[in-house]
């Protein structure tokens, strides 16, 4: 795994600090923007509300005056006490009272058959004229208050008959001499427009005045005036939010709403408020960027001050890191030398920093501990090497205890033996042995000491020595084994136990007596490859029970019979598939021997075991002893 390239302490500190500061500064900018923005919007709402209220008040002064004049005239007409001259005089006074009053029209129900009378101030003189030939009864100013029987402020209308101007009329139902009629007082649309058009707020903020039907009366775009409604504008711009705003504005409500940017129209805030008299709407519109211009300035200032602070902090960290690096450099070099094995390296003078002092003490302690540890390892290694040498020496002794296969009696009248011992390690726990007890008696043994290593090897050595010392004069293998058992129980501190086959052959008669103490079976192969297997054990393993009962078995050997004994290293050899070599394969080898010569027999078995087993996983000693009984004759043992 490739090692990640490490960064310097300064760069790491700056990266972490940068990330934290960026987060903190961004958060502070966003929070400032939100909260200050809210406050500024709240202030703007108050300011715009005050302005709208003020402008509406200006507009409504004349409207209210007109309403009062209309109601007074209505009362006078209802009384019917004024003659034509007095009425003219009264209306003349009204023109003086209210300079926005342009004309007055008194229209009676058409059934009366009298045309409406229009009063106008022309060249400083009030005149009256009859409006003949007009379908006045189908005009909004007449028809709506007539049908609803309620006073009515008209939409702006173009007066082609008298003034030639766009008027806004206040109409109210009247009774004249018992007949219904409508009284209409007119004021010019300019009186509304002038006030609304005066609104200049922020850089480009403006006011729009909408009628009940949404008709745009004032707007910076002249082409929209008295032509488009606010809903036309919304439809043309394809902006449903503008239509929603229009509906709110025309419903007589007061509000403060933002319309997002769309179709090249910048995001704007609308403060809208209705006129109390006729429910028209005055809306003050300010582009958001102007409304929040101060916020933008504030955020830039904040940004640059934070950027400055950020730069100073990072610079400070960088300088501190460089100083720290300078201090740490000799320490790092010392650590590097210590790391490469030079534990004697002296530490440089550490800075007077608490953490550095603790670190220095810890490193000194570590140096001492490492020196002790290395010394211990060296001693242990020496001891180990010494023991290893002794083990190698013991192994040589052990191998010398085992009979050499050279100088065996080869005469067909005698007996021929061949043994193999292949320890799993330097020294093993298996043994085989054969020797003459006397001129006519041949003793052989094969044993497997449980366990491995030195203890097993020493036990094996002791058993070999013991057999050689107690076997002479004995012709009963069970008695020899009993003595071995007793010896093992009494002397073997590690409680190792031993499986063993011990056999004694009377060379003159071919009679063999053997005892099997927990060992693998004994095989006898005759020259015709007929195989006899002696699986019965005559006791448990030796060194296990104190009062062990051991039996024996007698077998008659024919000349040419080959006795094969081996240890479980053969039968329990394991293949790479974790399969045991087993008895079947062993017997197959014995059945297929080309010759019954002991050396060939032993090597054939070993070859098969090697071919079968996975050498890497072979952990047990292998011992094979093959003895061919050649018939009555003398044996010469070297």
């Amino acid at each position: 795994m490739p090692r990640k390239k490490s960064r310097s302490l300064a760069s790491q500190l700056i990266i972490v600090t940068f990330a934290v500061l960026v987060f903190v500064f961004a958060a502070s900018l966003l929070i400032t923007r939100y909260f200050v923005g809210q406050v500024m919007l709240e202030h703007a709402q108050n300011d715009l509300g005050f302005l709208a209220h003020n402008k509406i008040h200006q507009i409504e002064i004349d409207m209210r005056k007109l309403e009062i004049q209309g109601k007074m005239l209505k009362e006078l007409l209802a009384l019917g006490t004024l003659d034509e001259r007095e009425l003219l005089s009264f209306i003349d006074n009204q023109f003086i009272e209210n300079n926005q009053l342009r004309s007055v029209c008194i229209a009676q129900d058409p059934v009366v058959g009298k045309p409406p009378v229009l009063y106008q101030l022309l060249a400083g003189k009030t005149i009256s004229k009859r409006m003949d030939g007009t379908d006045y009864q189908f005009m909004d100013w007449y028809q709506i208050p007539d049908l609803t029987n309620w006073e009515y402020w008209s939409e702006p209308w173009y007066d082609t008959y008298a003034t030639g101007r766009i008027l806004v009329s206040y109409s109210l139902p009247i009774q004249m001499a018992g007949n219904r009629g409508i009284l209409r007082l007119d004021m010019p649309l300019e009186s509304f427009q002038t006030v609304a058009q005066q609104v200049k707020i922020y850089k480009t903020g403006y006011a729009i005045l909408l009628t009940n039907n949404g008709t745009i009366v004032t707007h910076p775009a002249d082409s929209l005036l008295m032509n488009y409604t606010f809903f036309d504008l919304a439809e043309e711009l394809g902006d449903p939010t503008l239509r929603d705003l229009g509906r709110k504005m025309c419903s007589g409500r007061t509000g403060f709403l933002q319309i997002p940017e769309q179709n090249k129209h910048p995001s704007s805030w609308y403060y809208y408020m209705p006129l109390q008299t006729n429910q028209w709407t005055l809306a003050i519109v300010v582009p958001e960027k102007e409304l929040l211009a101060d916020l933008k300035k504030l955020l830039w200032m904040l940004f640059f001050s934070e950027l400055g602070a950020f730069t100073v902090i990072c610079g400070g960290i960088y300088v501190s890191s460089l100083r720290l690096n300078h201090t740490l450099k000799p320490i790092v070099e010392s650590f590097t030398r210590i790391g490469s094995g030079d534990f004697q390296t002296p530490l440089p003078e550490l800075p007077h920093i608490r953490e550095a002092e603790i670190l220095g003490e810890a490193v000194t302690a570590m140096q001492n501990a490492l020196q002790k540890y290395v010394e211990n390892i060296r001693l242990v290694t020496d001891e180990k090497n010494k023991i290893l040498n002794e083990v190698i020496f013991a192994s040589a002794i052990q191998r010398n205890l085992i009979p050499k296969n050279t100088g065996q009696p080869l005469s067909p009248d005698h007996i021929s033996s061949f043994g193999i011992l292949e320890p799993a390690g330097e020294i093993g726990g298996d043994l085989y042995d054969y020797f003459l007890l006397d001129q006519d008696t041949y003793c052989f043994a094969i044993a497997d000491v449980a366990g491995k290593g030195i203890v097993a090897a020493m036990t094996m050595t002791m058993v070999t020595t013991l057999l050689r010392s107690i076997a002479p004069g004995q012709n009963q293998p069970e008695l020899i084994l009993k003595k071995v058992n007793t010896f093992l129980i009494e002397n073997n501190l590690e409680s190792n136990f031993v499986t063993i086959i011990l056999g004694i052959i009377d060379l003159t008669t071919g009679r063999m007596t053997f005892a099997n103490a927990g060992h693998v079976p004994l095989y006898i192969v005759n020259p015709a490859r007929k195989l006899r297997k002696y699986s019965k054990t005559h006791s448990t393993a030796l060194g296990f029970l104190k009062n062990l009962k051991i039996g024996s078995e007698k077998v008659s050997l024919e000349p040419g019979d080959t006795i094969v004994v081996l240890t479980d290293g053969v039968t329990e050899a394991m293949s790479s598939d974790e399969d045991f070599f087993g008895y079947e394969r062993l017997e197959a080898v014995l059945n297929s021997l080309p010759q019954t010569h002991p050396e060939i027999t032993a090597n054939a078995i070993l070859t098969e075991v090697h071919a079968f087993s996975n050498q890497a996983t072979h952990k047990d000693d292998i011992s094979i002893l093959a003895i061919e009984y050649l018939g009555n004759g003398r044996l010469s043992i070297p």
Partner: protein
Amino acid sequence: MFLACSANSLRRVLLFIYSALLLLFLTACRDHDAPAKSETKSDAMIQEDTTTVKIRFLPKWLHQAQFAGVYMANAKGYYRDRGLSVEIQYGGPDHSATTSLRDGFTDITCLSIFHAIRYNEQEKPLVYLAQLFQKNPNMLIGRKRTGLSSLEDIKGKKIGIWGGEYGEHVTLFLKDMDLETESVRVNWSVNLLLSNAIDLSNVMTYNEYHRVLMAGLDPDELFIVPFRDIGYDMVDDGLVTTKEFYENNPQACLDFTAATMQGWLYAFEHPEEALDETLRIMRQYHLPANRNHQAWMLEVIKDLVLDHPEGIGVLSRNDYDKVCDLMEKHKVIRNRIDYERFYPFAKEKK
């Protein structure tokens, strides 16, 4: 979305078909006149080339996209190409189309077929040159919140109906549907409805209905009775002249009709250009030039005009009979005029 696309595609196909039919129609017209021309020989032809027939056309209402076909025929030179010099007069409520025809101040105008048939009965005989609106654009609308949810609810309500010939169609509808209401004559103002002075109002889909929407009312707030959707789909506006003028100028009438239809097709294919020309004329006469509203009008009228399988401008015998049946039923007319006499171009159609 899919329906909208399909409708647009269908209209494009119809436009193409109508253009092809119109071309055939124009060719047929010229072939029809060919023998007469050949008799007058070259002098006559020269005279026809150099002589311009003057026609005064009076729109039935103020200048607006309702007459965009005439504006475009004039602007694109379709009249001039046929040797016509067309004067587009100023119409509106103060300039009655029938009065102008009667008094000889105008030659060709635009009238509802109801009005044309009735006027024909009463005054100078008329000739119907072309059927423009193949569908009925009349509607009654009112606020749902006044308790309107079905036709039965109309009974007893105050209904604003246009005065004179313009409201005749609605009056017949109410009679035919046996709906007794309180009729209030109004002068084309939607303000009565908006100020709740009346319960329902007579509107055209292409005009007043849009003004109501543009006063902030949403369609789902409105109770709408479109005549054409309730079995009352009578054709509406058409081109009309006097019998006298037609008989004196048959070729000019045919040429005027053909050029006007060509103008309509051009307007539908080039709506922005048609709107520019319409707004130019409106401004020339100091009329409020609301492009948004005129765009709506042109779009709706396109649907009204391009809705006859036989082609643009055709008055089918079936449509004519349907209108006459209704008028006879309510005794508005006594005897119907022969279809071919009323609409002489029926022969050309064949």
